[in-house]
């Protein structure tokens, strides 16, 4: 969600980081996958020879999402500014109604699909219904996300996360959304927030709305040599997919499959998975979809069920539910973290993927380390 002062925020970030005035920068927008889109753009620019060294990633400050004036108020302000004398101003004032002051919460608008008229949470409710995912399964998945993040923090496995400092003398070493004291009973107490009466999706089993930023340096082989850069990994392939907006949460299922087909991979070929946890129900639905013959045939064009992902290899250090989902940044964060997981486990291949509001999915295949030859 671009802030009004920073519409091309990439340029602002570049200048404030000191990348230099002569280094161009642009901002991409793909809702939840903007960070991954930025990596895609960078990779393509390097592949085409237009650039050798690109700083790419995503930033998000959802806590700064604007509160807007409604259309009636904007119209009224237009009139007011042209009222030149006392009489005209009085006349304008007399037209002002309480309804003019009703604000539009930018954040809520941003998280609502304007085409199908559903909030993101409601699309997750759709998936829960479609794949028969119970409240208990969602809550258990969410709880596990918190457990994994807690373990990762304790084992200091999140080295890529920088400590933040505010101007009041506080240091923030960790994201503050982690609940170490959660249990199923507490999870069960939370009320549904999207379908308020009979829904299953709660604040507890949804991603947290947070601020965050993740940046990666992408370089050509030439630049790696020239600047003697340490190589964490390589981007091998990227796939974007479109699907029914009301079921946008299945985006990963749709975008991952074509990559796997291109490389003749089956699920065991992938060492680790990062599927962004927009909603517990949505991640679970992706896994369910791949297990269903029917869905895989009709929606993914496969001959039968795609298979089952081992949960021990998926989001091993937690995900959006526990660490938060700063929309624009998550796409870059999960790629970076996946590469760190591959490095730490000394494994080779991983896929990072997200669902995208509006009915899309994005997936990226990465390999750790430098190219190891054919």
């Amino acid at each position: 969600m671009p802030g009004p002062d920073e519409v091309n925020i990439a340029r602002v970030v570049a200048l404030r980081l000191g990348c230099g005035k002569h280094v161009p920068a642009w901002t991409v927008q793909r809702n939840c996958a903007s960070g991954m889109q930025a990596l895609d753009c960078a990779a393509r620019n390097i592949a085409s020879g237009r650039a050798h060294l690109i700083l790419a990633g995503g930033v998000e400050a959802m806590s700064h999402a604007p509160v807007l004036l409604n259309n009636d108020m904007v119209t009224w302000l237009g009139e007011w500014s042209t009222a030149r004398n006392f009489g005209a101003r009085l006349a304008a004032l007399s037209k002002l109604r309480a309804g003019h002051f009703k604000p539009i919460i930018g954040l809520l608008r941003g998280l609502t699909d304007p085409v199908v008229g559903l909030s993101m949470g409601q699309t997750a409710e759709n998936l829960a219904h479609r794949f028969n995912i119970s409240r208990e399964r969602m809550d258990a998945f969410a709880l596990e996300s918190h457990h994994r993040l807690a373990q990762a923090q304790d084992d200091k496995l999140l080295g890529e996360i920088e400590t933040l400092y505010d101007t009041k003398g506080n240091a923030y070493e960790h994201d503050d959304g982690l609940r170490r004291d959660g249990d199923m009973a507490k999870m069960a107490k939370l009320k549904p927030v999207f379908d308020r009466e009979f829904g299953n999706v709660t604040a507890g089993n949804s991603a947290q709305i947070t601020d965050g930023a993740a940046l990666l340096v992408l370089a050509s082989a030439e630049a790696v040599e020239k600047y003697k850069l340490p190589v964490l990994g390589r981007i091998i392939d990227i796939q974007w997919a479109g699907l029914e907006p009301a079921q946008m949460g299945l985006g990963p299922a749709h975008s991952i499959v074509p990559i796997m087909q291109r490389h003749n991979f089956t699920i065991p070929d992938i060492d680790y998975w990062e599927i962004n946890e927009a909603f517990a129900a949505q991640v679970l639905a992706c896994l369910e979809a791949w297990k269903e013959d029917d869905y895989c045939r009709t929606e993914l064009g496969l001959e039968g069920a795609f298979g089952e992902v081992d949960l021990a290899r998926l989001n091993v250090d937690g995900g959006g539910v526990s660490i938060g989902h700063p929309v624009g940044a998550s796409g870059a964060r999960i790629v970076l973290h996946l590469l760190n997981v591959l490095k730490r486990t000394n494994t080779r291949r991983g896929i990072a993927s997200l669902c995208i509001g509006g009915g899309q999915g994005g997936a990226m295949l990465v390999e750790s380390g430098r190219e190891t030859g054919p």
Partner: protein
Amino acid sequence: MTIKEPMNPPADKPIYKHWHVERDNDAIVWLHIDVANNSANILSSGVLDELNEILEKLTYALPRGVIVLSDKPNGFVAGADVKEFVPLKETADALVLLRRGQRAMNRLAELKCPTVALIHGFCLGGGMELALACRYRIADEDPRTRLGLPEIKLGIHPGFGGTVRLPSLIGAPAAMDLMLTGKTIDARTAKKIGMVDYAVPARHLKRAAVAVIMKMPAPHRPTLLQSLTNKGVIRNILAGAMRHRVAEKAPGAHYPAPYALIDLWVKHAHDPAKMMEEEAISVARFVLGKTAHNLVRVFFLQERLKSLGKKTLIAPQHVHVIGGGVMGGDIAIWCALQGLRVTVQETRHDALAKVIKRAYALFKKRFKQPRLVQAAMDRLIPDDKGVGVGHADVVIEAIFEDILAKQALYREIEPKMKAGALLATNTSSIPLEILSEALAKPSRLVGIHFFNPVAQMQLVEVVSSPITDSMVARQAAAFVRHIDRLPLPVKSSPGFLVNRVLMPYLLEAVTMEWEGVPAAMIDKAALDFGMPMGPIRLADTVGLDICLSVAEILSQRLNVDVPPRLRELVSAGRLGVKSGQGFYTYHGDKPQIPRAKPGYTPPSDIAERLMLRLLNEAAACLREGVVADADLLDAGVIFGTGFAPFRGGPINYVQEAGVDIQRKKLHELEQHYGKRFVADAEWAEL
């Protein structure tokens, strides 16, 4: 409106050395000041003579308007020529100089056409008075524009009509505040108080000047309330408050000029002509006085220190500070404030958080504009992994005083540093020769020793050991200039200059306190001498633990005994301001001063005991060649300790007060108090 470029003067016009006079198609005269053979414009006699001549001619061939502007990139006019005052012996000679300036300003003020001062950069002292003599003032809104009347810092007050014109322009409170403190302000502030009429971006300066001459808006007038402040009875009331405020900073016995300025205004503000005359007489008197003489000396000492760092020797962009404690953090903050990119390496996140907090407070105070605060915050990068060391042009080590820890650090960072990057230590007590043993290239280590609080202490000791590469030392001094501090080259010897000279003085104070002299009496004696803070309070402020550790290091190598009283307080956990109790008890940072016992008379030799130990140590430093010469010693002690500036430094003071007299006193003290008062051999050379 179309802008007409000023045309070249016709060939028959006289050519001046310091001014260009150009008359454009609208009959506006552009009066460019561009003082020959000087990087800044200063109003020397030659410059003023030419100005008088020009203005006299203009009086007879009146143009449509006159615009006074500077052709120097660094500013408008930096002030009168201080050098001309130094050799003066007679009041009459001083009066000639002052009246020459006043006459030029008055001629300018009396021109019948509109006059505009077009101001960018420095507009100080005589330059400000020149601007005040114009009908309008237009200033560049860039923060580099600095306006003010800082004469008071040289022990005089404005003497080219400034005392007359400024109060009547903006009212007495703002005007007297500027003249009594000598502070400078930017264009926006000047606009707010009415000292300039417009603060505009550089791109509009000339357009604005032409427009003002064409339209002739009503000149600035003080508000009714402001003008009332210059009226009879009110003047007397305000003057009392002013004297009171001045007394807090500058006792009249040492600094007479501010009081004379207040008196001048009280007595004569109703009669500008008379006030003008008295202004010159008053300044002439001070110019010849000892205070002004020594303050001018301090001014030149400062210029000398500045000249010791040649900025061209290094072009630092990135500084890496290792150690996020009080000193390391404050050094990092200061460098970021001065526009450098800074990484501050520290593994303790809470320490880094405090650095960022202090930085924000300072940047907010200094920059005001949120955009500039943000930019400075962006330049200061917390670096818990030490990533910055390989990018930095200057690496400053400011970790705790431990030889092995520092050596281990150097071994680790030296291979990571950029080739040619400067490696400096902020150590105050460990000889550089020992530290540099850890380096593959030992000659690259130099000391850059800052004082606490970094943002207020102008002096930085640049320390060379016998093996320090002299080019490295010169680059270090140049770096110090890049961050707007004053470099003092010193030899690597215990305590360098400042701490070494200060320590015997502090310890003598501690000894006296232990003997039973009330702390407040000791501090008062030092304040009366002209020190900025008493020694006991200074010790409490620095921290008694730090004082003790420095004293112990010095005592091993020098003729210094550590009084048991200091150890006693430290082991009782009384560390000074930071622990709430030291010699004094503190509420916040304010000491509670106990009432003196009735009938108690303090010993008469407090000040002598304090100062002679300092002076004696200064002599020893000179003998050992800790600094190159006596002037640098004076400069270092003034800017490093705040030593009474009006006394011109310790060696200058000894010479003014009489070497023999001081030496005799030292001898008397030796007989009373023992060998710590044995006169150093250097006294024979003073």
